[in-house]
């Protein structure tokens, strides 16, 4: 009897704690919206999202260059991250000898544990001069940013894709092989399509990570507020726009940064819901 009462109390305490973490999320959302929405009303949603000029000191608040910047950088990161990540996941789940896997898996996890400022610093010191010397431009560019981001999203893509490949019933593989397909044909025609939902979810989560990355991008992208026209141009993403200007922003400028946060909030929410939706549909 006493145990049961204790159980109830513990249950309620846990419930309270669980809700407090959710309520923090709610508080953050309320705060961001409260700070940012007034500016969006004032400027107009269309002028804010499709405006091409960001000059807060003159009252121009258009974040189209940042939306395009985020898009290009993320696309570049995916172009690098998807083939590498998928190949790595297939290798890990199908071919890796146990001894190599023992070494490979922690190494990939470590890739996720490296702080982004280290990625940024490495990119700035090693990658940026390479791009500048061999390809031209300032070096601080979408290309450099995409390369670094591509590596940063690898752990997400690899681990979730590998999990979904491993979760397939062994009969799929046995069936493919029994029909006379080679190992590679089985992987490419049977296993990867069957694990499609998990793989797509991993890519979308990787995208979320890429869009949200700030510190490394501030260091590598150059942060120019112009709509980029080539991969060697400098760009600014939505997150770096907030990160780089919050120190000195006040008044409308500060609100505009929160409004940038609202746009980011929606993009990330859409991506996450998509990932959850896709990973729930188990069979592809």
């Amino acid at each position, binding site marked *: 009897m006493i*145990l049961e009462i204790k159980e109830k109390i513990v249950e309620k305490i846990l419930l309270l704690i669980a809700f407090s973490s959710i309520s923090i999320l709610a508080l953050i959302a309320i705060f961001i919206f409260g700070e940012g929405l007034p500016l969006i009303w004032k400027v107009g949603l269309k002028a804010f999202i499709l405006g091409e000029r960001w*000059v*807060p*000191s003159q009252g121009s608040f258009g974040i189209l260059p940042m939306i395009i910047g985020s898009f290009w950088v993320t696309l570049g990161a995916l172009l690098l991250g998807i083939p590498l990540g998928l190949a790595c996941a297939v290798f890990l789940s199908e071919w890796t000898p146990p001894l190599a896997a023992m070494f490979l898996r922690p190494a990939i996890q470590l890739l996720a544990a490296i702080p982004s400022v280290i990625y940024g610093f490495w990119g700035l010191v090693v990658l940026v*001069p390479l791009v500048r010397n061999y390809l031209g431009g300032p070096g601080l560019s979408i290309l450099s940013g995409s390369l670094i981001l591509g590596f940063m999203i690898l752990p997400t893509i690899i681990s979730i894709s590998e999990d979904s490949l491993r979760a397939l019933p062994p009969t799929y593989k046995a069936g493919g092989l029994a029909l006379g397909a080679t190992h590679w044909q089985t992987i490419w025609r049977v296993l990867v399509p069957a694990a499609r939902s998990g793989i797509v979810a991993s890519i979308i989560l990787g995208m979320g990570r890429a869009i949200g990355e700030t510190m490394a991008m501030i260091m590598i992208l150059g*942060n120019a507020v112009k709509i980029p026209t080539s991969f060697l141009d400098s760009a600014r993403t939505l997150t770096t726009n907030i990160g780089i200007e919050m120190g000195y922003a006040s008044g409308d400028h500060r609100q505009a940064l929160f409004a940038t946060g609202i746009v980011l909030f929606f993009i990330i929410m859409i991506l996450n819901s998509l990932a959850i939706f896709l990973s729930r549909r188990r069979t592809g």
Partner: protein
Amino acid sequence: MKADLMKFHLSWILIFIAVISSIVGCQRRQAGVTVAGSTSVEPFAELLAEEYMLKHPESHIYVQGGGSTAGIVAVKTHAAHIGMSSRSLMSDEKNLYAVTIAKDAIAIIVHPENPITDLSLPQIQQVFSGMIRNWNEVGGHLRPIVLVTREEGSGTREAFQKMVMEKEEISLEALVQDSNGAIRQVVASDPNAIGFISLGLVNQTVKALKISGVEPNLENIVHGRYRLVRPFLFVFDGKPEGEANSFLEFVLSPEAQGLLQKEGLVTIRP
């Protein structure tokens, strides 16, 4: 079995509560003076704070960056005792008490290998507005100019805008970095770059340009020949008192001003 599970839960909850309460409970008593704000003023304030603490071992001065506006907001909300600003106060900040602690020159910097040593103000204006796009148009190599500027709202950018650009706009193509140090880093590593930073932070990795033949040095600044000069402010909410006041007094003392002068700033009392 169930009791075991129970103990397990309870012990975790106890640990959790202990951790939370230790975080909440030991909210540090505010001892000493917190100085926050402009990243341009920060290194000098740190130097002064060190010196001050040597003399007054019992007191603590905490110096943080964050930016001029962040510093001013911190003072308003009493998160900091002193705000550092590298721009003059805006109209809605005039109720604060501001003291000019020194003046700082802005240097136009290029890569040391750049053959250019001298530009006129109109030339600098045209370069930064994007009208001059190649170094050969101002007598250098045939190479595109890479502009590096500070972010919107920065005190240094604002001062540069007012003193050099006037009505012109800094090109939107310019790379944007969020501190003097970051600009210096980019300019030091890119032979085609040009940027502007606080003169006190110029070192051998970059080259400060003469402006119409006038070298940015103390003598030229004091005599008013080098014009790109702006104030460094300490900002208070009301009259400074206590520890903050004695730090301010130290900063304004001839000794501290001498230190600032050695670091390349222009002192307020000649």
